[in-house]
């Protein structure tokens, strides 16, 4: 049975800045992302932003974030989440798996239909993450991702 995990992180929006990424540290298993929430806890303002869910092949160095098992009986997650900001990433060009334009006042949630999950390949250091492609300001962006292994 699949094991489900969740992670949250917040990072200031910007231009091509990764907010949160899920890194596959090995080749043993894939990860499947099935729930994504993007919001903002800054003072409300009418600022537009674009967010993409992209893939990459080198995760770079970010801030380690602890994955939470949705079932407390589950072992620690294999997939390693990291939060922004990052150095040394390699992003795959034209790899947006999901793209959304969002007002800062709005909250966005995407949930996969079973079988429609975003796949984190079973390749060492491959990752899938939420990127702030462009934004009218630098408000704090709150991101949540759920995945199964």
């Amino acid at each position, binding site marked *: 049975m699949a094991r489900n995990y969740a992670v949250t992180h917040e990072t200031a929006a910007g231009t091509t800045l990764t907010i949160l990424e899920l890194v596959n540290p090995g080749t043993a298993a894939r990860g499947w992302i099935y729930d994504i929430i993007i919001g903002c806890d800054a003072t409300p303002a009418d600022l537009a932003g674009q967010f993409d869910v992209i893939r990459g092949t080198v995760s770079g160095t970010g801030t380690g974030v602890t994955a939470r098992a949705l079932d407390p009986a589950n072992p620690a997650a294999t997939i390693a989440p990291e939060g922004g900001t990052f150095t040394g990433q390699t992003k795959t060009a034209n790899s947006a798996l*999901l793209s959304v334009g969002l007002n800062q006042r709005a*909250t966005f949630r995407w949930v996969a*239909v079973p*079988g429609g999950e975003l796949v984190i*390949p079973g*390749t060492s250091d491959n990752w899938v993450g939420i990127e702030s492609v462009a934004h009218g300001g630098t408000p704090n962006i709150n991101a949540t991702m759920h995945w199964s292994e």
Partner: protein
Amino acid sequence: MFGHPNRGPAGHVVITSPSGGTAERETRRCAHCGKHWLQVPGSGRQRGLCLRCHGLTCGAKPCDPCLPYEVRIEIEEGRRSGTVAAYLDTYRAVFGALPG
């Protein structure tokens, strides 16, 4: 997980606006690159239908040749020999270049 029919919704989007309204949309997934897009009837955006694997495609030119998403992932993982580019070259050699 890849055995589902690839023409139905692959995801659901909920956007909560500050005015109190909530917008809900369906997303479809490209059978070749895995990209999700919002289903907006009447948007005028051209998508594709692969007559080989019978899945919807996102309409991007690189997704015209049939390289199913599962196969693409397996190539990237090294579980299949070759590269994505080599696979697409072979496809074009067998089936010919697509028009446009």
